[in-house]
């Protein structure tokens, strides 16, 4: 009698569990999100954290509705090491292929992180018809240009964050303001020897000359370089007033320390300046990074009120990971999961072609403004107004805090000069 009673209890308990929506989703076959990320570097781990946070939130709400079924997301991460010096692109390709073939990834999210690796992975994604949403690191305009050029082949590739062209435009908007306010006219460019940074530095050079700036130098440093004294001295000798930095390697913190120690009268204005994007930068440089400006590509990677979702995301990220969003891939990687969920639910299937069509129809308010993809190139549409498109963010370190100074629609402060530059 006792055994029979126990059996009935177990059956009833199991039935109750199955009736719970969350439990039902977890019982269904998960949708695998394959994430090829350089996990030892900021642009890898920030994306991983953003993706995992979004997945946790979505799964907690029952998962993704696919053709009437609720299915959970599951994250598979493989370290591509593509941001490390000397690691060949083939490592990242192996990681992508392993995610597809071995881990049975339904979608690829996040990376590869280095532009060269992402470009090389495009034919692979096309071969396996796997949708990929880039959300961190890759800034080369060539990525989405290739989609536009050979749409049928590369239509599975999307990018949900800003690209180098957009970043250049945002920087010049600030340079021109500095020119008007302080009479700056001499620009010194320092870049890392990687595809996106070299490309962007050359574009900066050309645009600067066209806009009447005097480009006093363009120095390319290899990945892993740890002494920038000669370049900085050159900037000093040429009376440069702005040092435009394109570097995502951690050693860029050394450059900024050297800049401070030399008291160089030129404002460090970076893009993809990984070291300065992190909240720990202040402590790591003992405050020597003050006045450094950097472009963190999209809103939500520094505190501001771009949309009602921005600080909600910011606080949720900080609560889960014990650190504020700290790299250019945080908010975009988080949004990539939500955008993909919406597209899958609209398509009602995981079929790549149908989900591509639905991704192209994406039009939602996000952490960094209205989010839409250009239907031809699959590049997220940028804007200076969060009501119109994906807004960027330029921050400056001021008294130990990351203060958003651009665009004006979301700014919380204005650009300040170091005391040794004030006349």
């Amino acid at each position, binding site marked *: 009698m006792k055994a029979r009673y126990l059996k009935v209890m177990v059956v009833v308990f199991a039935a109750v569990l199955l009736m719970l929506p969350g439990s039902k989703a977890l019982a269904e076959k998960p949708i695998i999100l394959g994430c090829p990320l350089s996990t*030892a*570097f*900021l642009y890898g*781990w920030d994306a991983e954290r953003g993706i995992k946070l979004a997945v946790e939130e979505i799964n907690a709400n029952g998962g993704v509705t696919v053709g009437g079924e609720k299915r959970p997301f599951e994250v598979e991460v493989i370290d591509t090491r593509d941001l*490390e*010096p*000397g690691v060949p692109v083939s490592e990242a390709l192996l990681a992508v292929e392993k995610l597809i073939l071995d881990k049975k990834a339904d979608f690829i999210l996040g990376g590869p992180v280095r532009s060269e690796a992402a470009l090389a992975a495009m034919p692979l994604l096309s071969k396996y018809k796997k949708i990929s949403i880039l959300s961190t690191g890759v800034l080369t305009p060539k990525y989405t240009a290739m989609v536009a050029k050979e749409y049928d082949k590369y239509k599975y590739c999307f990018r949900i964050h800003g690209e180098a062209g957009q970043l250049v435009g945002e920087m010049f908007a600030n340079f021109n303001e500095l020119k008007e306010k302080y009479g700056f006219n001499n620009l010194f460019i320092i870049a890392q*020897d990687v595809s996106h940074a070299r490309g962007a530095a050359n574009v900066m050079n050309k645009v600067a000359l066209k806009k009447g700036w005097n480009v006093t130098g363009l*120095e*390319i*440093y*290899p990945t*892993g*370089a*740890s*002494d*920038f*004294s*000669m*370049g900085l*001295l050159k900037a*000093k000798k040429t009376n440069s007033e702005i040092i435009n930095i394109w570097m995502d390697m*951690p*050693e860029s*913190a*050394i450059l900024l*320390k*050297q800049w401070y*120690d*030399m*008291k*160089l009268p030129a404002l460090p204005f970076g893009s993809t300046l*990984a*070291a300065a994007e*992190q909240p*720990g*930068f202040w*402590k*790591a*440089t*003992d405050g020597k990074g003050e006045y450094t400006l950097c472009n963190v590509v999209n809103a939500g990677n520094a505190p501001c009120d771009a949309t009602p979702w921005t600080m909600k995301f910011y606080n949720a990220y900080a609560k889960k990971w014990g650190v504020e969003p700290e790299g250019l891939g945080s908010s975009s990687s988080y949004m990539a999961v939500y955008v993909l969920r919406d597209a899958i639910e609209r398509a009602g299937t995981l079929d790549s072609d149908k989900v591509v069509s639905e991704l192209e129809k994406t039009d939602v308010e996000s952490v960094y403004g209205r989010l839409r993809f250009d239907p031809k190139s699959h590049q997220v549409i940028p804007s200076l107004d969060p009501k119109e498109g994906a807004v960027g963010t330029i921050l400056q370190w001021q008294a130990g805090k990351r203060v958003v100074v651009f665009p004006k629609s979301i700014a919380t402060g204005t650009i300040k000069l170091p005391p040794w530059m004030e006349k």
Partner: protein
Amino acid sequence: MDILIYGTINSIALALMALGFALVYGISRVPNFAHGALYVITGFITWSLSRTLGFNYLLSIVLAIVAIGVVGALIYQFILIRVRGMAISEIIASYAIGLAILEGLRWGGFKGTTYTLPVFIEGSINIWDVPVDLHRVLVVGIGAAVVALLWLFTHYTRVGLALRGMAQDERAALMLGIDSDIMALVAMASGAMLAGLAGVVLLPLGNIVVEKGYDVLIQAIAVCIVGGLGSWMGAVLAAFLIGFAQILTTVYLGPHFQMVVALLAIILTLILRPSGLFGQQKELEERV
């Protein structure tokens, strides 16, 4: 003038990075490919002691250097002694130890830009109108002091003389009652401490990253090959040659060619003079 000043700083930094490697090879003929890892881990130990446990910075440095000396001795006593005399095995074993340390640190979460050590002295001065921060000036002083102390140690102390005896002729040293294993152990511990010293002196200029271990190893090997494997004075001279070549390359060819200098120096030395500037290992062979 900036080339002269920063060339000197760069050269002294290279010499500091390479001296430990040269010392170990010179005495025990063991190429310590874990050298870069010992350099980096000393930085992390110092960071952990001073920032996490709240120890005094100077005390943290001293403890870290002593600890790394013990680690070096243990590596020799428990691993390298078993393969001593088998060159390929020595390289594989020491490289594997280095790899395990560096990748273990990465696996343990020591990644990113937040691991830094404070400089010894804040501020900067102008030397002939060239701005130089005081820590770099101190690097030059410490580097020169280390070279001088190493010379005094190996010329005027019993242990130092025994080490030199070993370096010159191990069999003759054995006949004079010098225990070669003990001396090799002392050399390994001293080499590790020199790697650690270089780490705590140079890492405050930047940040402590795992990748630096691989870079330091390449730089140290380049300096020792050019200077002549086993020759300390050769290593110092080679550090100046490579150090100035790197700065001149940065100024006249562009910074992205700087990385090539060390590798080119290795290739050219191996082609033109395999024994290096002061090396004796292959000199007879070359003459023949």
